[in-house]
């Protein structure tokens, strides 16, 4: 298999883009990635576009082909990838496979979503398309509800408190303040969080990531196509794992663990030959505050049941044992659902280049974790710098 390298990156800010169409956002990020890569467009062999709810919220599909045409890419395979909130991570994995297999010299991957023009019930309904709607859906369960259920179990089993969980929010919102691409960085207090409105008990407003508009893009290629600068950076994909789990909450034996994450992490560590202790930073899927705690345990970064305590003790902060979500994560950077997975990859690349606005000092290896639905789809990627 060919080693897959990062050739170029691009991203819009995440947040409200009322005057920009979903196609234009995707083209904006993608054009930057292509230009930065320095790769002639004739060498780009495929486009994978991650998107989740452009159908229900925009009445638009076939975005991959539309975006490719606007980038002057003609006749190549263009595929929209959907795996709920993991759509972007899955799109990236397919781009990696195309280069690794030798089928393509270079591939463009784009993640994009626009959500902020829609009302909260409309967004909730669109996101609920990612439930098992023959089973959990008819009960009226929502995604905040899924994590409200998980929270109660985590609290009961491990003694995790409101204050522990708020520590995740305070950390990520503070990181978001330092990230110019982030939608909603903030300097929050325990009291502000604890007094915010209930969304899905015990989950409150600040426990939820904001819906967002945004796009991110990456060009991956064989080493031979890299610019001198990219070759010097030598950022490559060390592991690409994608797994599945049950879409039904009732088919999860432990409500505060996702089998798909556990399996993807195991595969990613095996592929890369690395262990959790070798990872310098992680961009993981904190769609809700409690999700970061669950993910950090499922990824093997934090001992089972200790996610809340580690957050409260600052062990997942910028100076901690393992730096989690230096971008601000979904909680602060925003969650344009189909773009998020590619946005995480974008963030890790800037860290490995040493060019991030909230730089993790000396970062050499970074992990991303992108989770869809009730854990029905998951990707874990590990990126590393050669030198």
């Amino acid at each position: 298999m060919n080693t897959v390298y990062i050739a170029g990156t691009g991203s819009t800010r995440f947040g409200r883009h009322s005057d920009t169409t979903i196609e234009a956002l995707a083209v904006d990020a993608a054009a930057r990635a292509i230009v930065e890569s320095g790769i002639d467009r004739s060498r780009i062999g495929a486009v994978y576009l991650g998107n989740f709810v452009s159908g229900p919220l925009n009445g638009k599909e076939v975005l991959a082909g539309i975006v490719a045409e606007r980038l002057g890419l003609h006749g190549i395979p263009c595929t929209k990838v959907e795996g709920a909130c993991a759509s972007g991570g899955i799109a990236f994995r397919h781009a990696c496979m195309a280069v690794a297999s030798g089928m393509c010299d270079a591939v463009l991957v784009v993640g994009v979503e626009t959500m902020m023009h829609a009302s909260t019930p409309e967004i909730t309904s669109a996101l609920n398309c990612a439930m098992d709607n023959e089973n959990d859906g008819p009960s009226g369960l929502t995604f905040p509800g899924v994590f409200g259920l998980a929270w109660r179990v985590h609290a009961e089993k491990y003694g995790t408190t409101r204050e522990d969980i708020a520590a995740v929010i305070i950390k990520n919102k503070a990181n978001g303040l330092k990230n110019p691409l982030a939608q909603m960085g903030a300097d929050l207090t325990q009291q502000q969080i604890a007094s915010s409105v209930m969304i899905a008990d015990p989950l409150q407003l600040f426990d939820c990531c904001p819906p967002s508009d945004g796009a991110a893009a990456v060009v991956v290629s064989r080493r031979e196509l890299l610019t001198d600068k990219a070759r010097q950076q030598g950022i490559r994909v060390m592991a690409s794992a994608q797994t599945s789990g049950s879409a039904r909450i009732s088919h999860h034996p432990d409500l505060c663990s996702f089998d798909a994450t556990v399996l993807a992490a195991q595969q990613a560590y095996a592929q890369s030959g690395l262990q959790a202790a070798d990872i310098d930073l992680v961009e993981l899927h904190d769609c809700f505050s409690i999700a970061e705690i669950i993910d950090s345990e499922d990824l093997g970064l934090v001992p089972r049941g200790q996610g809340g305590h580690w957050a409260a003790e600052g062990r997942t902060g910028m100076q901690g044992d393992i730096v989690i979500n230096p971008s601000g994560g979904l909680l602060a950077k925003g969650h344009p659902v189909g773009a998020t997975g590619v946005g995480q990859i974008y963030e890790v690349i800037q860290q490995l280049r040493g060019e991030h606005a909230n730089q993790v000092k000396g970062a050499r290896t970074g992990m991303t974790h992108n989770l869809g639905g009730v854990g029905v789809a998951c990707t874990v990627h590990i990126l590393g710098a050669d030198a």
Partner: protein
Amino acid sequence: MSDIPRLKFHACAACGALANTDILICANCLGSAMQTVEVPASGTLVSWTTIRKPPLRFKAEGSYHVGVFDLDNGQRISGRFLAADGNKPGQRVVATDTTAASGIATFKVESHV
């Protein structure tokens, strides 16, 4: 036990695997002979939440409780929950309504079942 409401499940005639979805093919053995069986709608409370921001379909209800329950036959299911102060995971629950058109049952805590 006879007054405990019953829930409809689907059982594979070939291997006996149970599912609470109306499926045509058994996920365990891919057999196609599925039968309807009834199981007691009693068990224990795993967790619950109060949905205060419902999707469009349930918007008229305002807020409501959804729970996850481990039935005594070993199956875990989700459904509506009649929550009350002091509820705790592990409490005994029984269905109060198994006839909803959606196929979703509603449970409540009942220490004597």
